[in-house]
């Protein structure tokens, strides 16, 4: 009898208690779930709206859109070649300048500088990332472009421009406004992103490994090239790809200094355009469905490129995280 009473009493108490926390929990869990799913919906919405907006242009030009060098609003003939070319070349220049500098900064912060200087230096480099794109743009237009026009471009034309074949990269008059200036600004802008990822992954190297190398008489250079870099290779590449993703999609700073010309010009001293600069310049003034749809198609191409680059970056950094976790 007493045993029966207990068996009844326990479930009843449980039934009474569960709703008190249960509904609250269910509601809160549901709420957080909804907003987490919202993040996915935003990405889904971006893809759907881009595809929908790009359809008229893609239907009209099909795959020829990517290799068509024309951009003519009067005849409604549009192609993505010049913007894609400009996007890739400016990002390439940004990487060529940005990667070695970022590596140097990360090396200095993790291996060379005195401890007290580490935090302020890290903060200053991160402030470089906090300055908005538009500020780099106005600075690039009024300060950097004239400087490059006056000093750097004449020097390039006079030296590298004279090499047969290769010189075509530096042909034409020094304008200041052009692909080179845009790439240079991008390099400064992605520098803090790459440098801070590199610094973070360099710090994951177990001190024991580095100390062992120093202990057998290795120099700082040797420790970095033989121990730190092999250990963090994936993370370094991940950081570089993260910077590349930023450079590809950067808009305002590039719009100010690239010159916005829809021509594929082999010389990096001449004006060009990028996908994001074309969008920023022309979208609100695009008259006609095909014109606007072509611009959205450009946006779609940019989205696909950056998505692939960023996803690769993320996967690489995740892999490093996992292997570092396994080692520890």
């Amino acid at each position, binding site marked *: 009898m007493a045993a029966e009473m207990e068996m009844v009493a326990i479930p009843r108490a449980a039934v009474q208690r569960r709703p008190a*926390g249960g509904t*609250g*929990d269910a*509601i*809160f869990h549901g*709420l*957080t*779930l909804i*907003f*987490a799913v*919202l*993040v996915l919906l*935003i990405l889904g919405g*971006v893809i759907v*709206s*881009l595809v929908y*907006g790009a359809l008229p242009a893609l239907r009209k030009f099909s795959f020829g859109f990517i290799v068509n060098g024309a951009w003519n609003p009067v005849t409604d003939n549009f192609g993505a070649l010049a913007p894609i070319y400009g996007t890739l070349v400016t990002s390439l220049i940004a990487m060529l300048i940005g990667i070695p*500098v970022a590596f*140097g*900064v990360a*090396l*200095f912060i993790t291996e*060379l500088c005195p401890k007290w200087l580490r935090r302020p*230096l890290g903060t200053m*480099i*991160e*402030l*470089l990332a*906090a*300055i*908005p*794109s*538009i*500020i*780099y*743009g*106005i600075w690039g237009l*009024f300060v950097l472009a004239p400087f490059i026009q006056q000093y750097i471009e004449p020097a390039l034309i006079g030296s590298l421009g004279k090499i047969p074949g290769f010189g075509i990269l530096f042909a034409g008059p020094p304008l200041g406004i052009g692909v080179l200036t845009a790439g240079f600004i991008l390099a*400064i802008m992605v520098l803090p992103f790459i440098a801070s990822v590199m610094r973070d992954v360099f710090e994951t190297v177990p001190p024991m490994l580095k100390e062992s190398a120093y202990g057998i008489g290795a*120099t*700082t250079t040797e420790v970095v090239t033989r121990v730190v870099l092999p250990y963090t290779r994936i993370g370094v590449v991940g950081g570089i790809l*993260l910077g590349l993703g930023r450079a*590809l*999609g950067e*808009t*305002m700073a590039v719009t*100010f200094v690239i010159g916005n010309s829809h021509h594929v010009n082999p010389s990096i001293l001449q004006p060009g355009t990028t996908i*994001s600069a074309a*969008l*920023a310049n022309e*979208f*609100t003034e695009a008259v006609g469905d095909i014109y606007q749809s072509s611009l*959205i198609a450009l*946006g779609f191409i*940019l*989205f696909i490129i*950056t*998505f692939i680059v*960023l996803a690769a970056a*993320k996967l690489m950094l995740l892999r490093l995280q996992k292997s570092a976790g396994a080692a520890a």
Partner: protein
Amino acid sequence: MQLYTRRRIGNYVVVGLSLAATAFGLLFLVFVLGTLLKNGIGALGPTLFTQATPPPGSQGGLINAIFGSVAMTLIATLIGTPTGILAGTFLAEYAHGSRLGEIVRFINDILLSAPSIIIGLFVYSVLVVPMGHFSAWAGSVALAIIMIPVVVRTTEDMLNLVPNSLREAATALGAPKWKIVVTVTYRAAVQGMLTGVLLAVARISGETAPLLFTALNNQFWSADFNRPMANLPVVIFQFAMSPYADWQTLAWAGALLITVAILFLNVGARFFASWSGLQK
């Protein structure tokens, strides 16, 4: 001995280059900020805060753009903060080891670095086209979408720093999970979460590209969120690219205002973070 000298010289070269790279980075920080101060301070004046953007060739200020930027950033923060915090809570508290959690985290990190101009295109097609006109609401939503991934990321990171023993202690006292999250873990992580919100506000207050197709710009004073609204970044863009000297001066003044505000937010957020670190 020769080998030793060669290695040492090689090392000096690398160390020197590394030093030069750091100096190069800092040089540009000083260079950009110096130019802003030089060109911006001369343009500061009382009319900046009392008059709206002028037609070319006459005196004016930036009050309509300052108001628009503050108002849209505020609305974006009101939308983005709760959304980001709840999604971040899901990742930190409910999604351990779940497939959905991993996917959301991955997508969120991609949105974090996705080109902001694409977000502008998205909001243009889902808000501006159906409404039939540019509006400050669309601008606010675009900014909120850029803000959300930043808040999600920092909220998750900060909640993960809260020691599990706190949660276990509350569970042992019989508190339901939602109450543990709201009264225990949020309270332990609140400074870090606020730091994240501040950094996100700093990020969106300089964003230009997403506003170009959404809020557009407005030459006149307007507080109507259903109409285009002036905002500092787009005004800077238009005025700096114009051939008029007085417009360019105003662009420098606006650039200085934005940068000072953003640097304050950033330094404030860092101060906040280190202060909360001290408390632990």
